[in-house]
């Protein structure tokens, strides 16, 4: 049953990708509507399998990624690492641009284009961030979210790590739609996407060595902690970190209460004790 449901979600995503490429410019995306992006209780029907791959990924990380990242971080001077970061970010600007267009964020798309051309030509192929434009990472998962596609079950992929079904489909879509990857394939440089992914991964991992260690040490269920952090962060990036839309948790006690109340989920979110409920109930009546 579960796998069937999951397959249909995946299928739905694939169809969406196909449509997206067909429709192209004709589609009018609804833009970032916070109402589309609700933080729901976690949906993790594949938890046993996810936990298995989570452990596998942890092992791979401990054996390969983390040691390499350590060496990378300690051996190279700060300037070189910044350039590596800049270079990979610059390579991603074209796909960010496409996603921003698809999301209807034309200002964002303009920034991507400006940063890409400035840094490519004046910043020695993107090694230096001359443009100094703050561009957000925009992936296809975010684009789907903006279009109102639900996130689907949580998914831990081998090597790629935490995802939702929607994001996993987006990942595949991004890989094939990425202009840099397409250019590389067309010039018989199939290894480019792989090197790019490795480089980006090591660069990012190197910056997160202590933080991740810290989370692992302090958590009593590392898997659940990462799942929560991932999902909250996703919600935030989908909303492009809008300050006014600080996504407060809208799950609350009354979901599970014997007597459900409504219309005051935020105020009840941090209820002090049982009698405060009755007081507030009276006031809303």
């Amino acid at each position, binding site marked *: 049953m579960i796998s069937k449901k999951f397959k249909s979600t995946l299928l739905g995503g694939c169809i969406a990708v196909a449509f997206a490429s067909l429709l192209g410019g004709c589609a009018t995306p609804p833009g970032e509507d916070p109402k589309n992006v609700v933080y729901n209780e*976690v949906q993790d029907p594949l938890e046993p399998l996810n936990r298995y791959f989570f452990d596998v990924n942890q092992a791979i990380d401990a054996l390969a990624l983390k040691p390499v990242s350590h060496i990378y971080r300690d051996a190279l001077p700060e300037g070189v690492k910044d350039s590596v970061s800049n270079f990979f970010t610059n390579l991603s600007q074209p796909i960010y641009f496409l996603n921003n267009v698809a999301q209807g964020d034309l200002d964002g798309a303009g920034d991507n284009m400006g940063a890409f051309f400035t840094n490519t030509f004046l910043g020695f192929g993107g090694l230096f961030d001359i443009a100094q434009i703050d561009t957000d*990472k925009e*992936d296809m998962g975010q684009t789907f979210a903006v279009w109102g596609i639900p996130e689907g079950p949580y998914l831990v*992929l081998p090597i*790629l*790590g*935490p*995802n939702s079904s929607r994001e996993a489909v987006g*990942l595949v879509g*991004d890989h094939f739609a990425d202009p840099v990857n397409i250019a590389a394939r067309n010039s018989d440089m199939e290894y480019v996407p792989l090197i790019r*992914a490795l480089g*980006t*991964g090591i660069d*990012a*991992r190197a*910056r*997160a060595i*202590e*933080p*991740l260690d*810290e*989370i692992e040490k*302090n*958590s*009593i*269920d590392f*898997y*659940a*902690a*990462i*799942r*929560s*952090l*991932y999902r*909250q*962060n*996703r919600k*935030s*990036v989908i*909303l492009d*970190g809008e*300050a*006014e839309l*600080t*996504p*407060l*948790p809208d*799950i609350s*006690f009354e*979901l*599970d*209460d014997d007597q459900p109340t409504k219309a*005051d989920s*935020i*105020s009840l*979110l*941090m*209820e*002090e004790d049982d009698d*405060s409920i009755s007081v507030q109930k009276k006031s809303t009546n």
Partner: protein
Amino acid sequence: MKMIRLASVALATSLFVSPLALSVPGVASYAHADEQSESATKLVDRLGKEAVKLLSDDSLDVAEKRKEFDRLLARDFDMRLIGRFVLGKNWRAASKEEREEYLTVFQEYIVNTYQKRIGEYSGENLNILKAKELNAKEQLVNSEIIRPNGPAIKLDWRVRRNKAGELKIVDIIVENVSMALTHREEFASVISSNGGKVSGLIDKLKSHLGDKSS
């Protein structure tokens, strides 16, 4: 690619580990000039200032700093309410004894988790941006940590007026990631893997604390 996103959360979260390691410049701008948000801002501002004074005070040893840290935590945070929120729906299922025991262990766990970075203060600055009203009881104070190296980190404080009329911090939100919610989902997972028993969570927290002290 995945790792980048993860990394940004992770980075932000680790900085939360020293939420009090901040210095507060005197200037604070208020979006809402009303009394409520002003006093909420003042609370965060005062906490930040005192924390910096504490952390940069070389005449205190680590044990003394920890004691002071405990005092600030007890004064400005509503630990009972946070503990209860974090337990979520399982609060209802817990017996009275379990609730009390859980709250005690939870507080210890939080102190243990966030105390470790005491002494790692490296000149971060807390810049308070504004406060906004969430509802009749709650305010959200927006601030950012200005770091000597690296980009600023967004930090929001959820402040609530309790029944006694005192303002208390009930959640810290780092780069839009709520710490209370993260703990809540983590704890829910532990409880469900222990057959829905709150006692399973309490045991897990205790053994976690035991590992740390040994």
